[in-house]
């Protein structure tokens, strides 16, 4: 039987050429390409998880504006393994973005984008852009209230593109408003267009890795010289190269197994993001937020000055993209070791710190009004009747509490007013309320005189409690 199987395999291999097809996996690579080199494979494995879980989800998902939400409810609540599958797709996407970031940082710090691997880097940058596009369109396919409003946000952003902005915005919406044509186009982009392009670019990226070889770990004091590099690299491979499969690939396999385990465990125990309310554009109690991988950009849009926002919103991503694409064109030779390129370390650190900080701020969203702030209690107001009490109630009713904190209650958009009575005089408080200023609306026309008096009385009462020590008489000299 064994002989029969062997004969069958040899026949198939001869006719199909499986061995020839798999031969590139055995290409010779530098033996020092160890754990730092696993992120590329991990990105590809995450992509495969996405393809597999996405295809499975498509068995039940209906990309129709009226039915998608219902099918998602079915997948989440009724279909066997449906909730797990959604989780797999969500954490797979998260893993892919994390791994592509790690792969990019490693490639940059190792100077692996330099000669002759410039185009390997550039195709990788395009893959990063496609991956982010997949992340965004994927969030929209979770066709709930957040998704529907996110389409509007995307259309508004596209609207800022010069000349063709209006056209792009309506292309995204599929018309003048969200409607029947909106979801199906995002489905087509997420399921066919972007993955199709990504298959081509992943193929090209891997082909370029084969063509130019896996870069050897950098050595300080050994700069890249385009005239001699290829010869030196070949000598290195001849001297100490190892076949990628299986001599080096086992590390990739171990790391990817850990990654898959993490994705599976998260999907199983934590599950996918909960579905929001149905995608009804007539319900305005919505608070659209992007998934975590775009939350930093959401924060950036709130923090950049309004005067230059229109330009930055479009120009910044374009400039960052162009900058990343042309890095190897501007700097394709010289030192590769990070120890000799401190600016490279600075760029990576600065990027991580900036994105991380924006992400943290985006989580807190202090610029958003706190619509859910409950009325202040008598204990917080420190009165049960009279103008101070009435002012404390008005502080909630007039939505002051949506933007200001009182003893930890309220919003964080404006200054904390817990002890505003220590900082501002009565006149200053009145002027501020009536005229507004800075980022505060003027309330002069919406407050009756007695309401203003009560509010001012409340705010004047907000003083630090006087401690016994402060009451002691000042010692005389």
């Amino acid at each position: 039987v064994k002989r029969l199987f062997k004969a069958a395999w040899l026949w198939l291999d001869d006719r199909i050429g499986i061995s020839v097809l798999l031969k590139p996996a055995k290409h010779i690579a530098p033996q020092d390409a160890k754990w730092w080199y696993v992120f590329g494979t991990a990105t590809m494995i995450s992509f495969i998880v996405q393809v597999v879980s996405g295809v499975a989800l498509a068995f039940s998902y209906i990309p129709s504006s009226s039915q998608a939400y219902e099918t998602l409810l079915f997948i989440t609540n009724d279909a066997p393994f449906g909730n797990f599958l959604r989780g797999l797709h969500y954490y797979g996407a998260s893993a892919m973005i994390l791994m592509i970031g790690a792969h990019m940082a490693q490639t940059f710090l190792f100077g692996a984008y330099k000669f002759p691997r410039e185009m390997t880097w550039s195709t990788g940058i395009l893959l990063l852009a496609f991956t982010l596009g997949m992340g965004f369109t994927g969030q929209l396919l979770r066709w709930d209230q957040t998704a529907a409003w996110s389409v509007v946000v995307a259309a508004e952003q596209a609207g800022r593109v010069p000349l063709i902005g209006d056209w792009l915005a309506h292309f995204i919406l599929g018309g003048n408003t969200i409607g029947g044509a909106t979801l199906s186009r995002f489905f087509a982009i997420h399921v066919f267009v972007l993955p199709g392009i990504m298959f081509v670019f992943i193929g090209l990226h891997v082909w370029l890795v084969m063509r130019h070889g896996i870069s050897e770990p950098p050595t300080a004091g050994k700069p890249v010289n385009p005239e001699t590099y290829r010869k030196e690299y070949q000598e290195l491979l001849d001297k100490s190269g190892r076949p990628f499969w299986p001599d080096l690939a086992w590390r990739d396999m171990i790391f990817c197994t850990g990654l898959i385990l993490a994705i599976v465990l998260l999907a199983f125990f934590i599950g996918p993001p909960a579905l929001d309310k149905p995608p009804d554009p007539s319900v305005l109690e919505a608070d659209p937020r992007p998934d975590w991988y775009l939350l930093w950009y959401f924060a950036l849009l709130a923090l950049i000055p309004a005067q230059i926002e229109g330009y930055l919103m479009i120009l910044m991503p374009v400039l960052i993209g162009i900058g990343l694409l042309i890095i190897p064109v501007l700097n394709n030779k010289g030192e590769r070791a990070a120890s000799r390129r401190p600016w490279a370390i600075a760029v990576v650190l600065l990027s991580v710190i900036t994105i991380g900080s924006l992400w943290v701020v985006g989580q807190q969203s202090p610029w958003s009004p706190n619509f859910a702030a409950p009325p202040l209690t008598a204990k917080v107001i420190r009165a049960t009747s009279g103008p101070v009490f009435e002012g404390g109630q008005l502080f909630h009713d007039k939505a002051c509490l949506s933007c200001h904190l009182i003893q930890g209650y309220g919003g964080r958009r404006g200054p904390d007013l817990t002890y505003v009575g220590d900082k501002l005089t009565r006149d200053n408080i009145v002027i501020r309320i009536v005229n507004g200023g800075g980022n505060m609306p003027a309330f002069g026309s919406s407050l009756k005189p007695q309401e203003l008096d009560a509010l001012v009385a409340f705010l004047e009462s907000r003083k630090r409690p006087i401690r016994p020590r402060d009451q002691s008489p000042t010692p005389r000299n």
Partner: protein
Amino acid sequence: MNEGITNHSAVCAETPEALSRRRFLEKLSLGLAGFCATIVGLPLIGFVIAPLFRKVPDQWVTLGKVGDFQVGKTVTVTVIDSSPLPWAGITAKNTVWLRRESDTTFIAFSANCTHLGCPVRWMEGAELFMCPCHGGVYYKDGNVAAGPPPRPLVRYNVRIEDGEVKMNSVVVPITTTL
């Protein structure tokens, strides 16, 4: 087999005639490929961008009877897309903020923040519209009170006809600042 290839190569000698013929065939093949791509691609592009050119009838939609709205109050009114696709479902619904200024004056505001389109909420006590996304705030007349919105809330055309308040088609207003 290799011999065969060599012999074949010898037959394809690069004589001027052969080169000229080969160049012609090359151009012919590429031209045909371009032609095929065009006749297949053009309708395809037309199909994909068709929603952009879909004519939505400029209809006046009834928001309610004049007496349904109190002077000085701002309320939401749900309107249905004037010509929704059959599978639009609840996405064919839309909401506008309608404010009755006086006996004869109504203002219909778009519910989309002019910053990035998020849904603004009316805070009755404060007489302000507030946006949950990036903190845009508008006064009751739609003018910007605070935050990043570059322009006031968009107003739709409103008219009173036969005792009913009507407005024309709802669209998502796109802010194009550049």
